[in-house]
């Protein structure tokens, strides 16, 4: 009973302080808003309008037909014409273009003979995404008897896209962003909340009172759980409003996934706070954890494409599991129980970090 009273006391105090800390208050709303708009509009893996140039040495009806077809794909913006392949290379070197199209003098004959390559695409392959786009361009048909080819099957494989038929990146990004934003704000807020007390000397007073480590931690965590939920609602509301991202699964399941994930991040924040001496250190440690989370969790790059070692590391990161959970529930409408291994991983992570934090938070100074 006394325990509950003390937890309530810490909570009430934390709320009072939060309501007076305008910067933190601003961050609670500002971070989701700005990041959602930024990532939602800026990150686009569906590449269009790459700058390109061409050198057409044959200048025949067929070559012009090919160039028109390439323009029609809208993947490249084939705006300027140069005389030679060397000039294309120079523009590529200068970073003016990402793709150069070279059509040789004997283009027509090569097409008819179908023995040698008829067209060359000069690609800035340093960016794998652009290389991938260039591969798409090779599918453009080049033949004289174009009427005939229409009837022939170009490929026997057909793609049927589920869950995101319009290929909008935002649909994939927004649920992922929930995890990214919660990781950033929840870990940072809690870590800083305790370290701040250490820095300002409040902790020296607190550890001389009967308040227990567990009570202090719980009292500090609860207000931030609430803040996490506010952010969750905010992100989905904005995602729905700006990017028409649907929530296909049950809201209850989204809530469960988010609550477990928030608890995971808060306990990690507490663990960080027991090691950091200053708010700056707490921030550094948070970012040490945040960066791999963003890059390896499958938020930015598909998980399966990563090397095995990176995948192993990613399995340790809570964000990886949350991404699978939230994308499953939100985009595919999966039942959360079907994703139980991810849920279990999060619960385990939270339990371990929380225990470590409580063990490490000593009420003694040595």
């Amino acid at each position: 009973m006394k325990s509950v009273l003390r937890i309530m006391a810490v909570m009430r105090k934390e709320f009072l302080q939060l309501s007076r800390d305008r910067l933190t208050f601003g961050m609670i709303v500002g971070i989701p808003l700005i990041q959602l708009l930024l990532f939602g509009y800026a990150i686009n893996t569906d590449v269009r309008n790459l700058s390109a140039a061409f050198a057409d040495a044959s200048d025949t009806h067929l070559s012009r037909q090919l160039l028109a077809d390439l323009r029609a794909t809208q993947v490249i913006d084939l705006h300027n014409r140069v005389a030679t392949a060397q000039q294309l290379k120079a523009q590529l070197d200068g970073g003016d273009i990402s793709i150069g199209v070279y059509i040789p003098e004997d283009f027509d004959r090569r097409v008819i003979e179908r023995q040698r390559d008829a067209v060359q695409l000069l690609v800035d392959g340093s960016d794998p995404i652009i290389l991938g786009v260039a591969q798409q361009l090779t599918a453009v048909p080049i033949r004289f008897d174009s009427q005939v080819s229409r009837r022939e099957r170009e490929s026997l494989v057909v793609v049927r896209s589920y869950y995101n038929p319009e290929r909008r990146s935002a649909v994939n990004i927004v649920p992922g962003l929930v995890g990214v934003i919660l990781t950033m704000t929840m870990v940072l807020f809690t870590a800083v909340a305790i370290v701040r007390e250490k820095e300002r000397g409040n902790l020296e007073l607190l550890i001389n009172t009967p308040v227990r480590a567990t009570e202090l931690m719980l009292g500090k965590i609860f207000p931030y759980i609430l803040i996490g939920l506010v952010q969750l609602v905010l992100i989905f509301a904005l995602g729905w409003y700006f990017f028409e991202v649907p929530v296909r699964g049950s809201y209850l399941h989204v809530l469960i996934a988010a609550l477990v994930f928030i608890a995971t991040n808060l306990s990690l924040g507490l663990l960080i706070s027991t090691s950091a001496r200053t708010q700056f250190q707490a921030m550094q440690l948070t970012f040490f954890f945040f960066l791999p989370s963003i890059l390896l969790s499958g938020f930015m790059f598909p998980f399966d494409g990563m090397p095995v070692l990176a995948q192993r590391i990613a399995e340790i990161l809570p964000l990886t599991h949350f991404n699978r959970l939230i994308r499953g529930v939100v985009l595919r409408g999966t039942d959360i129980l079907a994703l139980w291994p991810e849920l279990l991983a999060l619960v385990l992570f939270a339990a371990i970090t929380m225990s470590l934090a409580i063990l490490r938070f000593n009420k003694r100074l040595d």
Partner: protein
Amino acid sequence: MLETASEFAITATGLTKKFGSLVAVDQVDLKVPKGRIYGFLGPNGSGKSTTIRMLCGLLTPTAGEACVLGKDTRREAESIKQLIGYMTQKFSLYDDLSVLENLQFVSEIYTLKRSYRSLRVGELLEEFNLKPQSRQRAGTLSGGQKQRLALAAATLHKPPLLFLDEPTSAVDPQNRRDFWEKLFDLAEQGTTILVSTHYMDEATRCHQLAILDAGRKVADGSPQDLSEGISFRVIEVEAAEPNKARGCLSTVDGVISITQLGMRLRVLIPKKQRDALAKVRGSLEREGIEASATEVRPDLEDVFVAVTGAENQPEFPQ
């Protein structure tokens, strides 16, 4: 045995704390009687704070035992916390909460009964003269107000034992006087107070005190006992040219220290030196320095210099 033990709020034997190779507190024995103001006097880094922290159970002693209000500081640190009030060197309440909110928070942390909480907080606001500031943020208070608030918070749950770690380092003399009035009131009501300070005037006001130097307890007793028990004579020399007199006196046999106070010099000479006064006078006369010398009662500052500074004065070899 039990009878004698209960006379003391704090007993410690051989209390030692090492941080790596640094010995912060070295074999300190303490007996702090109940209902008294007990002072820790010592320069910065003499181990005052470390000793207090060990007594509160915040630091584990490297060696030695301490018993606070009948409880062992190693094993019963948590139950000691209900019984003590602690005022930190630095203001440690919340700057962004109001005076009232800070006190309310502390009353909740000590789980005072709901009906009693607001009553007690109101009582403290009145008692510590903080009523006009009750809605003001603690961060905007003056040094004296902050200190009153901190003491109010430390005494909120009416602890029988108070630890005050250099409580007056950031306040003006008037506030210090008021503060000490408060401490005497509390002692009157039966509270034992352990206060650390590096101010002589404050140390003089304690019922009893221990002088700490480089982690060791070099003297303890009441201020009067300490002054009388000193093994030095204090000779006060009043001179027109104190600097010249100082140069001359430093050559006198056995002089331990010379402290200048305006036109006067306080000269410490061991009691075992015979005819110290005559020697001082003779030496001044030989040099033709116009000065008068008289023996005076040692004060606490002299005691402090005698017990701590003696071996740190290479210019006057003994």
